[in-house]
Every structure is written in structure tokens, then in C-alpha cells.
């Protein structure tokens, strides 16, 4: 049961083979047993979870169940959830019990999904290794010495360790795809604007996008049907007719044009990762896909552009954490300025402070044009690169990260090295495109490696189709770590 996919759990619940309470209990027991070693959850609340499960069972008994009613889910601790601590991985919000729920949470609750707990993450979603959480690093279930990736490391580790069949997540520069790749699960980051950001604690507003991780592409499609949709409370939410993201899963791939950006296979890509991606491409060819080379010439510039734009937006987004209305406030201070300074100095971790300072700097008088405006121009060039590439292909394939998961502590002292590992994921956010990570094999050190699929705008169904067909002829996604 614990290895079951969302789809299978849905069938079992519908058939009455298992109840929501039984399912929740089984996962909670497993969390109790394994979470102390993995640290994938920040908050688990058995009473709350079982109350939700009971309600789901009652709904089913009343004949009002939907497809996913009673299925357990883990929520990244970035989505405000009424009555739950919503810490965003930060001491700043360690005392924050949200009085309201994010759109994503509301949608999941309306579908009857049962909250298992709140998944660990890098503080305010800033990080690629999950070592920046106030609640301690998450361990990679495949190797507890390895990072799980970040910032949605708790979500990825929970799904990989079968502590949850599915988990919500967010992706600002790779925070869904990179941990999904490192933990061997399937993750999708939709087109910017497809999933409402209302109630998602903001890191970099123009880049943040909610998404989901599960074992299979099909599960991701089912979840996207729940999470996506217009929300008038988010001005950047796109008003378009609802899609059924499962509609194209079974489509054959014959004639599919797959673009391989030459810049993604150049220096810096580890040999074992490169071979895994090559093999994955070969599988797709066997399914009838046609490979074309494309170019994304400004890929290198995505790193400086991202690390200007994201911190700039973050520096303003995080100003609201001032100790005045909620969140951490220093115990002692002599005046207002000292209250701000001490509360923020104590409440934020070092990576968050670094990005606030970088962001403040690049927006400062005299530097704005050289940094922020320049970065916005690069952003436009990167989007143009993708537009040109998609003129000749349907999806773009490549690695998610240059290497498999590195060791805990390996890069935590060198932020620039850490930033460089985001090279294959940042451009997608800068362009606002959808992308996925799909399990594609194991590196020489035995750690999972994901294949990145990048779609054109609103190309979610197409990406899911490719991923699903790939998962019909491979079994990387169904491999679980021995725990």
C-alpha cells in the first residue's frame, strides 16, 4: 500500500478496500518511524490529519467523494494553511499559525485530500540543498549523507521515502525539479500563472510557481487538475479555461520533435549524468521521437540574471517580516530601529540575509540600471532563445542538474558553487515556461538522476504525455530506496 501511486490509492479508496483513516494512519506511522532520520517534515499533527481523514471517509459514505478524496498529501511549509504552523523553514515564522489557507490548499481540501503534515524546505525557498532550513537539513532517502536538493527537499524526500504519495512544492529557480531529480521522484513546475500564488509565501514573485511531486507523471497530471485554475486573488493568475491534464497521457510519441540544447551538454555536465540523459533520449527515440539540436545561447547568463532578479524581489517581499504584527520579535530592544534590526538578525538565516543584502544592493540608487535593468534585458533574451528553439521542436530535453546529489556540507560554505549548480533550471523560471523532472537512472554513486522536460507555454499536457510514455517503458520512477 505504501508504494502505491495516487492513481492506485484512488482506486482502492473507491473500491472500499481501504479507508482514508487507514491510509492516513499507515503514512503517519511510517512518518513516525522514518522522519527522525530524514527530517522531511517540520510539522506533523496526527489529530488534525485523522480529523481530515474522518471527514473524507464521511464524504465518501455520503456519496460526495471525488477522485482523490481520502488520499493523503504532504504540503510544502510555504503554503499558508489555516490552523497549521506555516514556518517557510524560518525561525522568523516559527510562531506563525496561519489564519487563512492558500488557493492551492483550498483546492486540495475541496478535492478531499488529507493533509499528512508540513514538508521541510530551505528557508523562504532559498537554497538548492535544503541545508538552509531553520529546522535542520533534510536527508536524501537514497543516501542520508546526500542532500535531497532544494528548496522543496522535504517534499521530494517524503515522496521518495514513501512518507507521502504526493507532495505540493514550489519552484522559483529549480526548487521542484532539482530535488525531484536528486530524490528520484516525478515533479512538475507549471507555466507561470497556471497555479495561483495566493497564500504561497513569496520569495521572488515573478518567478515563483506552485507545482507538485509524486511517483508518476500520471499522478502529477491528476494533481494538476486539482491545483491549477484561475484565482482572482492573484493578479498574475491566468484566466483560461480549465484543462484536463491527463487528456494526452496515452498519446503515442511518433513524430514528436525533441530538442536537445547544445549548451546543456557542454563542459560542466558530469559524465554519468550525461550518459543517463543520452539513454533516456534513446528510449524516446525508440518510441518514435525525432531528435533535433537546438541552441539556448544565453544559458550561462541565466545565473547572474536570476541572482539579481530573485534577490531584488526577495528583498522587498521579506520586508514584511519586521516583528511588528506577527512572526519573530526580539525580546529586548531600545527603540524601533533596534527592534527591526534584532528581530530580523535573529529571525533570518544567513542565506536569506545574503539574498536580502544582494537584492537591496542591486536596487540601490546608482546601481539599479547596471544590475536590475540589465538582468531584465537578459531575461527577455532568454525567453527569446526558448521561443526560437520551440519553433523547431515540441519539447526540450536535458539534465536537471550537472551532477547527482552532492554530499551534505559539500557546498554549503561556498554559495557561488551552489548557485552554479542551478544552471539548467534557472532559465525556465526566467522565461516562465513549464518543466518537469522525471526519474531516468542512477549515477555512479547510486544516487538518482532526473531527466528534465521543458515544455512551451501551457505545454503541460504535452510534457506529461512524454513523461508518461517514458514511464511506460522504464521503471526508474517505481524504484524506492531501502529504508
Amino acid at each position: 500500500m505504501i508504494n502505491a501511486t495516487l492513481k492506485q490509492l484512488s482506486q482502492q479508496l473507491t473500491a472500499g478496500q481501504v479507508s482514508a483513516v487507514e491510509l492516513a494512519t499507515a503514512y503517519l506511522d511510517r512518518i513516525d518511524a522514518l522522519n527522525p532520520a530524514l527530517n522531511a517534515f517540520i510539522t506533523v499533527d496526527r489529530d488534525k490529519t485523522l480529523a481530515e481523514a474522518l471527514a473524507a471517509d464521511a464524504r465518501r459514505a455520503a456519496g460526495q467523494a471525488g477522485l482523490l478524496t481520502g488520499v493523503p498529501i504532504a504540503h510544502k511549509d510555504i503554503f499558508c494553511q489555516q490552523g497549521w504552523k506555516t514556518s517557510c523553514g524560518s525561525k522568523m515564522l516559527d510562531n506563525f499559525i496561519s489564519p487563512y489557507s492558500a488557493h492551492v490548499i483550498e483546492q486540495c481540501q475541496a478535492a478531499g485530500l488529507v493533509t499528512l503534515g508540513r514538508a521541510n524546505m530551505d528557508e523562504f525557498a532559498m537554497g538548492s540543498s535544503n541545508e538552509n532550513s531553520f529546522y535542520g537539513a533534510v536527508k536524501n532517502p537514497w543516501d542520508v549523507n546526500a542532500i535531497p536538493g532544494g528548496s522543496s527537499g522535504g517534499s521530494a524526500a517524503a515522496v521518495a521515502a514513501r512518507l507521502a504519495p504526493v507532495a505540493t512544492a514550489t519552484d522559483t529557480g529549480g526548487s521542484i525539479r532539482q530535488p525531484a531529480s536528486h530524490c528520484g521522484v516525478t515533479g512538475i513546475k507549471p507555466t507561470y500563472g497556471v497555479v495561483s500564488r495566493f497564500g504561497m509565501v513569496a520569495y521572488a514573485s515573478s518567478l515563483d510557481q506552485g507545482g507538485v511531486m509524486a511517483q508518476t507523471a500520471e499522478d502529477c497530471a491528476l494533481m494538476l487538475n486539482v491545483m491549477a485554475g484561475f484565482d482572482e486573488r492573484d493578479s498574475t493568475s491566468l484566466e483560461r479555461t480549465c484543462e484536463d491534464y491527463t487528456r494526452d497521457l496515452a498519446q503515442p510519441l511518433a513524430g514528436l520533435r525533441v530538442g536537445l540544447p547544445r549548451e546543456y551538454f557542454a563542459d560542466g555536465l558530469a559524465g554519468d549524468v550525461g550518459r543517463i540523459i543520452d539513454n533516456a533520449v534513446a528510449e524516446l527515440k525508440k518510441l518514435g521521437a525525432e531528435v533535433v539540436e537546438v541552441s539556448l545561447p544565453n544559458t550561462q547568463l541565466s545565473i547572474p540574471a536570476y541572482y539579481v532578479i530573485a534577490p531584488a524581489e526577495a528583498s522587498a517581499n521579506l520586508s514584511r517580516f519586521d516583528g511588528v504584527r506577527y512572526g519573530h520579535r526580539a525580546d529586548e530592544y531600545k527603540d524601533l530601529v533596534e527592534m527591526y534590526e534584532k528581530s530580523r538578525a535573529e529571525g533570518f538565516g544567513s542565506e536569506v540575509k545574503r539574498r536580502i543584502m544582494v537584492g537591496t544592493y542591486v536596487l540601490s540608487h546608482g546601481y539599479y540600471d547596471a544590475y536590475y535593468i540589465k538582468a531584465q534585458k537578459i531575461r527577455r533574451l532568454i525567453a527569446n532563445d526558448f521561443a526560437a528553439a520551440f519553433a523547431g521542436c515540441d519539447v526540450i530535453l536535458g539534465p536537471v542538474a550537472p551532477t547527482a546529489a552532492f554530499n551534505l556540507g559539500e557546498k554549503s560554505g561556498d554559495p557561488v558553487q551552489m548557485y552554479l549548480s542551478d544552471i539548467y533550471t534557472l532559465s525556465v523560471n526566467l522565461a516562465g515556461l513549464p518543466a518537469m523532472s522525471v526519474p531516468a537512472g542512477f549515477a555512479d554513486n547510486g544516487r538518482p538522476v532526473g531527466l528534465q522536460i521543458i515544455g512551451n507555454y501551457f505545454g503541460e499536457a504535452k510534457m506529461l504525455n512524454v513523461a508518461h510514455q517514458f514511464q511506460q517503458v522504464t521503471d526508474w520512477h517505481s524504484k524506492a530506496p531501502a529504508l
Partner: protein
Amino acid sequence: MKWEVVIGLEVHVQLNTVSKIFSGASTAFGAEPNTQASLVELALPGVLPVMNKAVVDKSIRLGLALDATINQKNIFARKNYFYPDLPKGYQISQMELPIIEHGKLAILVGEEEKVIRVTRAHMEEDAGKSLHEDFHGLSGIDLNRAGTPLLEVVSEPDMRSPEEAVAYAKALHTLVTWLGICDGNMQEGSFRVDANVSVRPFGQAEFGTRREIKNLNSFRFLEQAIKYEIQWQIDTIEDGGKIQQATVLFDPDSGETRMMRSKEDAHDYRYFPDPDLLPVRISSEQIDTIRAAMPELPGQMKARFAEAFGVSAYDAALLTSSLAQAQYFEAVASATGQGKLAANWVNGEIAARLNREGLDIAACPIAAERLAGLIVRIADGTLSNKLAKQVFDALWESDLGADAIIERDGLKQVSDVGAIEKMVEEAIAANPKAVEEFRAGKEKALNALAGQVMKASKGKANPAQVQDILKQKLTQA
């Protein structure tokens, strides 16, 4: 040395929308603290601003009234600074591409019209309020006002005296209330003025260094503050000092301005486009629709009053100082056909009485048709000015019409020649000394005799007739 004063104003006009600029919370004034602060005003983690479209429509109305350029692409920016009554740590405002640019507003300086250029007007959210009393050394924060829509209207430094500054502020106040986009309540902060003031030697082309007086919430304070500031700057320079750019506050108790922060303390607001809000695009059709629904503006109505009713430019300006005032006048003038008389009464007795009793024209106890009833009786000679004032007082106190009051109090002017002649003869007979004096060439003596006649008639005799008949009788005999 002779000094020239240079003044530019920045006015914060609170737009009278039902809900806030970026949330559905109410904008009503005076509620219990923080009861009108939604999740958005509290700036909880994860909340997002959503633009209130009514703010755009109201802003366009002002833009059209100022004959300005309406920018069809509007971008909101974050203005970053920390203060407890600014919950997000940034104010959402407009930096580049404000909704209104290059407008103009005419004011009257004496009898001369002067056009003040409006540089720009941009949409933004108001902050909350910090309450420093009643908290035993702590400060309280009330976020009810946070998120109230503001239109910040910035003028060019075109004003050359405190009087011009006040005239501009009043003209803008008239316009925004006229258009129905602001309630104009200055005590409640619906219309707040910042004045940029500098002085320079007459004839010098460059501006002097300016100081900005913040947050003036009455026309009287605006005038006092500018006057004080001008004198302070002139004194400082004449004493060999230099003006440093600064922001100052006006203290109405002392009548002085005092430094709030110097240029060195000026914030770097780190403006950048707010990624939570898409650019607001305004279509030409939207502008045309609003234009078609624009009311006749004060300037247009002023010209029409001068033309149609023959009133002076000065009177016409006073009559159009508010829409209610203008409508009141027009009703009286149209009903009586007596434009000048109507103007005199509306700008004179009515204005003085309303002012004395602290009332607005809308609350005037004498409705337009009742004043018209009075004016008709003045025009047809039934009432002398003196009697008319008596009737006016009675109109103010009762619900009766002018004719009913004249009837009730017997105030009809006596214009019957026979009756007046009789009274004149009696007066001549009773005052031989005055008669003698008049005949000796003392013109003033005539007034004494006329006074006797008026007294005898209990003020009802037609004064002009009394004069005529008196002269006639005295020169005849």
C-alpha cells in the same frame, strides 16, 4: 534685496472608492482601529494585491478635467522603506508612467487668470496611522487607512505667492469634489497638501534650494506655513546662511515650521516594478466613455455664468467654488432672470450666513426657489434692500415663502406717491431746522429728513421715491 517666492504643491487626494485600492476592505473613515484591515492590509505572508478598477476610472476623470495626457500603460512600483504603519515594508505607488501627465489648472489671481501646470498625478496606496498617545510609552498602529487609494497630484513650481498656492489648492479641491472622486474632507485627511517652497533674488533664473512642508490639512495652515517658511528662508539667507534641502513639518500651535529630516537622511526608496501587479492598460474606448460622462467643469461653468447672467469674473469664480454652490446659483438666476442680483445674494448674504453658522451650501435652510421668491420681490420693487434683509432673516428661520413673510409682517414697500408725499410734508413741517440747513446748501440735511420719513413709514417707504419727493418739495417751495 527683493525676493521672489517659488512654490510647487504635491497634493494627496484620497479617492472615494467603496473598497481599498488593492483589497476588498472598506475605506469608511472612523471605524474602530484595525477593523478595516484585511489580510492584505495586515501584509500576512502570501497575500497579494488586486487592483481596484474604480481607482483608474476616477483618476481618468481628473486627468480629463486637467486637460492632461492619460497614460494608457500604467505600471505600479514598490517604494521600499520600513515603518510600522507600512505593513509590507513597501508602498505600492507609481514611478515611471504615472496615469496622468502634463495637465493644467487655471486659478484666479486678483482679477487675472493664471494657469498652473500639473506635472503628473499617480495612483498609490495610503499607509496606516501610528498613534503615539494613550499607549504608555508605546505606539499603537491602526491599519484602517492602509490601502486607501490616493492620487498624488504634483504641480510644477509655478506659484509665486502663498495666495497663489492657496488658490491652486482650492481650485484642485473644488475640482476633485466637483468630479465626485474625493469627499474633500480635509480634517479627515482626504485632501493633504505638501508645499515645496524656495526663494530667489528677483530676476535670477535658477531656483533657490527648496524645503518641503509636509502634510498641511487646511488652507489656512497652508497659507500660514508658506508665509512663515518664506520669511524664515529670507531671514536665513540675509543673515548669511544657506538653505539646505530638507523636509519640514508645520506646527499650527507655534505657527512655525521645523525640520523633520535633511537631505542626508533622505531615503533611497529602491523603486522597482511590482511583480505582483500586471501593467494596467487603459483603452481609448474607456477614456472616451469616461469623457462622454464628464460633467460641465468649473471653468466652463464660470465662463457660461459670465456670458449668460452677466456676472463678473470674480463673482463667477466664487459661484463655481463648488458644484452645489454653482447649481444653487443657477437655479436662483434661472428662476428670477436676475443674474447679478442672484450672484450678489448667493455670494453675499447666503455665503456670510452659511460661513457664520458653519454650514455647507447643501445644508442651506433657504432652498434656491425660496431665495428666488425673495429676489423677485426685490426686482419688482416690492422690497427695499433693508426690507429684503428682514425677509431674508425670516426665510432663514422659517419654512414660509418670501411672499407669505411679506404678507405676515406687513413688509411691503410703500411706493404710493400720495402716501409718501403726505409723510414728506409732515417731516418738512416737523423739522424746520433741517429744512433751513438744506436750503442754505447743506446737502446732508436731506438725509436727516429722509431718515425721518423712513422712520415714519417703519422702513417701508421706497427710499428712492422718498429722496425724489423730498427734493421736489424742498426746491418747489
